[in-house]
């Protein structure tokens, strides 16, 4: 294999360490190749399940159940997609996922922005305590609450409806922390100036904070959409009617009906991950920033 790096180096000179121009020794070149090979192998391993899912989704069922090793479908077919759209309400599930995710995202991002502003820029009694309380909820696993939340939505008479999925999911402190960190960095002088001009708290929020928060809103929306689109445990408990299933629950239902006919299952899995993968590829920078910022405190 040819050397992949731009080769601008000469043989390592006998002189001491050169101050500016870095020379590439054979050892460094070997290490660069080793790094590239490692990265390529890791990349292939990480991609293989996805590649395989796509392959199986477009393979005829004979290929899927075959015991022969075959890394490429014998024929590309849309049969599996016909099955999920014809026999199963895949389109309805897709629509349900869109609706539920959209409502939860709008609701949770709005209330998180409001709360983040309060924690960042308003002073009130017990702020530290309330903030701690809110943050602590981020660590409560859904499985701890599932029995009582199930009881609650049953008592409220919304069990089995979208509202049963939406409200408990929107009750998340996930974005508050991110919002606070972002808004706290907005200079106080800016808010002071607005206050001098007679703007109230609400106006300051709407006309100064929100416009400055566009990158924050992008991050919050992306992370919330990703989380809600993929959420499985709670919708599994809150929904019962197959017509109201979201895609993850539809996938499980399909697996229950079809067992090991992986073709149809992979077709639906592919359908279910496509929007999120496209979104991720388009807005990768924001995704990664958001995740990284949640890590660096």
């Amino acid at each position, binding site marked *: 294999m040819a050397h992949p790096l731009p080769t601008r180096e000469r043989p390592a000179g006998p002189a001491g360490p050169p101050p500016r121009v870095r020379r590439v020794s054979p050892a460094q070149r070997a290490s660069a190749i080793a790094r590239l090979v490692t990265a390529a192998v890791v*990349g292939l391993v990480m991609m293989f399940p996805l590649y395989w899912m796509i392959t199986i989704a477009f393979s005829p069922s004979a290929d899927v159940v075959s015991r022969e090793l075959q890394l490429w479908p014998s024929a590309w077919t849309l049969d599996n997609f016909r099955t999920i759209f014809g026999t199963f309400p895949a389109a309805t599930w897709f629509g349900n996922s869109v609706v539920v995710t959209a409502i939860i995202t709008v609701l949770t991002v709005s209330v998180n922005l*409001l709360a983040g502003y309060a924690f960042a820029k308003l*002073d009130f009694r017990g702020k530290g305590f309330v903030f701690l309380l809110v943050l602590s909820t981020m*660590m409560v696993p859904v499985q701890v609450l599932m029995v009582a939340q199930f009881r609650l939505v049953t008592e409220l008479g919304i069990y089995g409806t979208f509202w049963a999925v939406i409200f408990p999911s929107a009750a998340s402190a996930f974005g508050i922390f991110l919002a606070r960190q972002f808004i706290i960095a907005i200079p106080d002088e800016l808010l002071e100036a607005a206050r001098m001009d007679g703007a109230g708290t609400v106006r300051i929020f709407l006309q100064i904070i929100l416009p400055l928060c566009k990158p924050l809103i992008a991050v919050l929306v992306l992370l919330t959409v990703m989380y809600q689109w993929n959420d*499985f445990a709670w919708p599994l408990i809150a929904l019962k009617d197959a017509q109201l299933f979201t895609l993850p629950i539809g996938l499980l239902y399909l697996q229950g009906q079809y067992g090991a006919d992986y073709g149809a299952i992979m077709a639906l899995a592919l359908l279910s*991950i496509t929007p999120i993968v496209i979104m991720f590829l388009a807005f990768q920078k924001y995704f990664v920033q958001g995740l990284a910022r949640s890590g660096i405190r």
Partner: protein
Amino acid sequence: MSADTSAREESTGSTAPPPSPAATYTAQPGRASRRQRSTGAAAGFLGPNLILLGIFLFLPLGWAFLISFQESSGFGASGWVGLENYRRLVTDPTFWQSALNTAAFTLITVPLSLALGLGLAVLMNSVLPGRKLFRTLIYLPMVISGIATALMGVLLFDEATGIINKLLREGGLATVPWQSQGTAAFASIILVTLWIRVGFNMVIYLAGLQGISPELYEAARLEGASSWQQFRYLTVPLVGPSTFFLLIMDVIYSFQVFDTIFVMTGGGPGRSTSVLVTYAYENGFVTRDQSYAAAIGIVIFLVTLVFTAIQWRGNRSRDTVG
């Protein structure tokens, strides 16, 4: 609501502020005079979120405690039985097996995802052609739903038609009983978990690495430190805060692993991959012993709480500064 809050804000404008814990959050003394009059506005801004959290998080949390002290009857719970559910936990071999599996899963996946995440972050932080592409490939599994990744795992690890056993067969090797033997099933779950999880660890470590000054490495190189020495004595200590954060996040994630196991093995074969969370779900929504499920949930919560407390203590000092 908005008009109301701003009106209240005006009316209490000149009141002197009482000292409060919030003082730790505001370094500038000049802002203190505004604290009192913001309280009304703060209630308006926090209200919607606190109401949601109160009804759908705090209330169920308290309720879960109550249910765990009751006995299950059909769909509901009735009659106080005190610590009976917890007493039953202690003598339930499936509970202990699930707790042990949870611990084993955590002890295996956390160090592996930390090590792999750091290794990949160092690799992706170095001079590497196409590293943007490679980074993307490593993040990608992270954005895919737990159920889709688990189903991919089912597809790959199927004993008869799965690609992994096909490859082993093709290579003249013995196939692995991924679905019928406990250890192999456990291993398949760990492999899928690492596949999903490594990207997150890498993101956090990359952010940590980018905060390290390159001069430190320059100095180390001048003093003749090898790559390994630079990694061991510079990189590892300097990404300490990231490691700490990831340790907590990964432990909590491992404690709450659900989708992967639920879909890939359902806790089987036998009880070999049952964890606390799948066992709680099984009790709550399959056998409908909801009080017992609530008790298991409380145990998970208490363990998680310990880790949260550690994280809070570790991060509090930095949080108040930043």
